[in-house]
């Protein structure tokens, strides 16, 4: 895919989707955790993203239980990041002179992650094709340096490039339609979420996952703990979509996930610090960071 080639040529590491259910590319630890702390981090990957509440039984031309995001993280955000992004559109065959491309303010917030950022929706002839965010805070920790996150909506861009109205009319590869691959899972997941899911069981799962995340945290195991947070988060989304969570309870569940996320973010930073921030090229700077962040020093 052109985006892979393009971002790879600019020095991004190409990563893979995460193997635990995520609601967005942002939730992948390649983003959530790595944007914390001083280490450089430039990656690109596709993320199949599950949004149970957006499930429409495969009948809606725009909304999907699972869509695909192309996620790019540039840390620290380069000075010419907007130009880099626009050039990536050119790489996709979108000539800015033939279209109307606009940066429309959109501030991003993820309450379950204790995260927020500022940026834009990028409109291509009136359609939002990318979320562009400068992360300001993740897991309750101020981002320093700041990462730029580019999240391309793959189905949207593809339907633009292929000039189709309905996402299911996309051609996934020559002779194979999006519909023939994804319509069945879309229908089944929607039916499962809205009609079949055993919510009692899921409430139990949520509690179990939360507990296990806490246990992993206590053992200072960042990544396993985070996996369980993702599971909590997905379970919560399922329950929410099924209408099983009232508004007040909703805030409480979000608070529980956020609490875990913040502890994990803190622990991640501590553990990276203990390792001496190995991904930093500037070793002197790395030592300075370690000194600054190590208590009693």
């Amino acid at each position, binding site marked *: 895919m052109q985006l892979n080639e393009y971002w790879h040529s600019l020095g991004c590491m190409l990563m893979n989707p995460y193997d635990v259910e995520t609601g967005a590319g942002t939730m992948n630890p390649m983003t959530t955790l790595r944007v914390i702390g001083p280490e450089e981090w430039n990656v690109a990957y596709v993320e199949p993203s599950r949004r149970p509440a957006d499930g429409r039984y495969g009948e*809606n*031309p*725009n*909304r999907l239980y699972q869509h695909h995001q192309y996620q790019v993280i540039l840390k*620290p*955000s*380069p*000075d010419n990041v*907007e130009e880099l992004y*626009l050039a990536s559109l050119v790489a996709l065959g979108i000539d*800015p*002179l*033939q*279209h*109307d*491309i*606009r*940066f*429309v*303010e959109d*501030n991003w917030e993820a309450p379950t992650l204790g995260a927020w*950022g*500022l940026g*834009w929706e990028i409109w*291509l*002839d*009136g*359609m939002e094709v990318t979320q562009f965010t*400068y992360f*300001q805070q993740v897991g309750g920790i101020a*981002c*320093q*340096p*700041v990462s*730029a996150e580019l999240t391309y909506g793959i189905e949207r861009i593809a339907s*633009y490039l292929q000039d189709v*109205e309905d996402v299911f009319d996309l051609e996934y590869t020559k002779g194979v339609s999006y519909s023939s691959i994804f319509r069945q899972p879309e229908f089944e997941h929607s039916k499962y979420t809205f009609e079949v899911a055993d919510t009692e069981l899921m409430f139990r799962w949520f509690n179990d996952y939360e507990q296990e995340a806490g246990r992993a945290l206590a053992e200072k195991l960042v990544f396993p703990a985070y996996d369980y947070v993702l599971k909590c988060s997905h379970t919560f989304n399922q329950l929410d979509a099924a*209408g099983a969570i*009232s*508004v*007040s*309870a909703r805030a409480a569940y979000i608070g529980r996930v956020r609490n875990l996320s913040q502890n994990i973010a803190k622990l991640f930073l501590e553990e990276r610090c203990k390792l001496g921030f190995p991904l930093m090229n500037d070793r002197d700077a790395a030592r300075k960071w370690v000194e600054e962040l190590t208590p009693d020093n």
Partner: protein
Amino acid sequence: MNTYLLEIGLEEMPAQMILPAVQQLKSLVQKTCEKHQLSFKELRTFSSPRRLAVQIQGLPEKQEDRSVELKGPPAAIAKDKDNNWSKAALGFASKNGVDPADLEFREYEGKDYLFVQRMELGQAVPELLQAQLEQWILQLNFPKNMRWGSYRMRFIRPIRWIVSLWNNTVVPLKLEMVDAGNETRGHRFLSSGKSLLKDAADYQVQLEQLNVMPDYEKRRESIVSQIRKLEQEFGFEVELDEKLLQEVTNLVEWPTVLLGDFEEEFLELPSEVLVTSMAVHQRYFPVFRKDEKLGAAAKTLLPHFITVRNGDGKWLDTVRRGNAKVLRARLSDARFFYLDDQKKLLDEFRQKADNVVFFQQRGTQGQRVQRIADLSVFIACKMKLNESQQKHVRRIAELSKFDLETQLVQEFPELQGLMGENYAMLKNEDAVVCRGIRQHYYPRHAKDFLPEDEESVPAALADKLDLLTTAFSLNMIPSGAADPYALRRTAQGITQLILGLRLPLDLRELTSAAVRLLDDQQDLSLERTKLQNDLLDFLHQRQRWFLQERGIRYDLIDAVLKTPAGIQSPQEKTATPALAIEQLGFAEFLSEHLETDMFKRSVEAIVRAGNISSKYADKIADELDESAMELTEEKNFLAALKPILNSDSQSLWSPDNYLQQLRKIEPVVTRFFEDVMVMDEDPIKCGNRLWLCLQLAQWSKRHLDLQSIVFA
């Protein structure tokens, strides 16, 4: 003459923050110029999504030389015993670089001090500006700032370049991420890379060559005239919402207006859904059939939209097709929700509200609706609505919030009420009930409509009273600027309803009922009196606001609001309090008579009667002893007082009757005070006279507190 230009180049700023930001920049520059007595011919600002700029034209080469007067130590310590300059005086001179021979004595606030005149050479203007540049930038305030890259600075969006030019030379400025220079950027796509700005004076012309219109007004005008041209060409009408126009103007650097279409079948959707999809979500201007007779609300939508592209007139077809596609997707979504919502019964949505929490610890949205319904019926009784009206009132209240659970309103929250009306109509509810679902939100702000139907009024009041009561019961009383639940506006709405519709409702009864309903339903054991007094106090302030908006004089507002309905005190409990509308009536009526001589004399006489009767309260007769009345003035007073004595001591007179009574009694009382010694030695006579004064004062005070009136 010289020109200075500062351009701050940024990544795209949020549209609504651009004009306030450039306004701030302008006033910072103005302040600098005032402080340094810098004259200039014109101060212009420019702005676009990617730049904030200020251009100062007609600047001198350097500041004027000026003579400054400096004040030194007091004369008493200026000379030593040999009459030579003292250390203090010499120190003052050397510190300021002046010859001691130029020192002189002058009086300052009654004491002598040393003074000296010093010539200050004007500074070269570029140098002077250079010292200020950084502060201009750093002092710009934004509601939300950000960091980027590895820099420490916080700003609205990342700063990418700075142009700082004195005519054709750079006035240096070093920021953490960028040095000022003479290179700007043109339009993101229509020009490429960096471009040299040759002269500060030609900023606008040079940028326009780079396909950027940096002048906001010009950009706006360009959009308007392009739209007007389309109107003429196609014979339709476009509604230019000022806010949308401003936003769109601030989303583009080079505007090209284009017309697109959508399928006629979508016109079946409620027009508000179409307008919201276009204007709010896509920033398009909706297009209407031209019809001069109809008001904006009744105009017919046409299946077109107008959008403004940030670019030139090439490839417009692609842009048009793309935009039409997005709109089509949005409208299909809306139609899906609209049709799907219709499959359910209204009561199914109401049941969903039982699972939605309204405020923590204050029950569900369903319970809130129950309270609104009960309170509405209570209000309907007070308004003396008949039985069939009351049925409608209850139904309106019951259905007032169901649409919040519909998919369409969850997608378009701004359509609450409107969609409720629409769906209820489809389910064949009574027309007055359907309208009521929409109207119960009125008024949503100070200039908004009031409900047209009587039947909508109780729910409109009850909705707001319940919100206010619930919030206050959780101690969420707005103070200062913070008012996250818009409670001030809510209370204002209550005032607008009662006073605007002249409803004979007693706020005390209303608040009491609202408090009771909440307390009983949620079993909270609230401190009811305190809560109710907090509410009344809050509503009282809004009432004051309402009267001020009507242009009523402050002293008259005080006078009417100080009557018993205003502040509840135990002593005054016996008198029936004035209703809010009665207070309004008095204020409006008396506004016209306030400056008449008769009224002035009446105020004097009644205030005097009030003062003397309260000062000698212990000497007032319990009952009047007519046999002891000898003087004509006393007898006349009593005669003129008769209508007051014969009326119910609790009830209020109409403003008109009140004034007529004043007119009759004023000469008598004035005469009485001129000729009669109130404090007679005879306690019976004295008691009688004080009694007369008391009756008059009490009667008047029921209506308004004349002591507050101030005459110029």
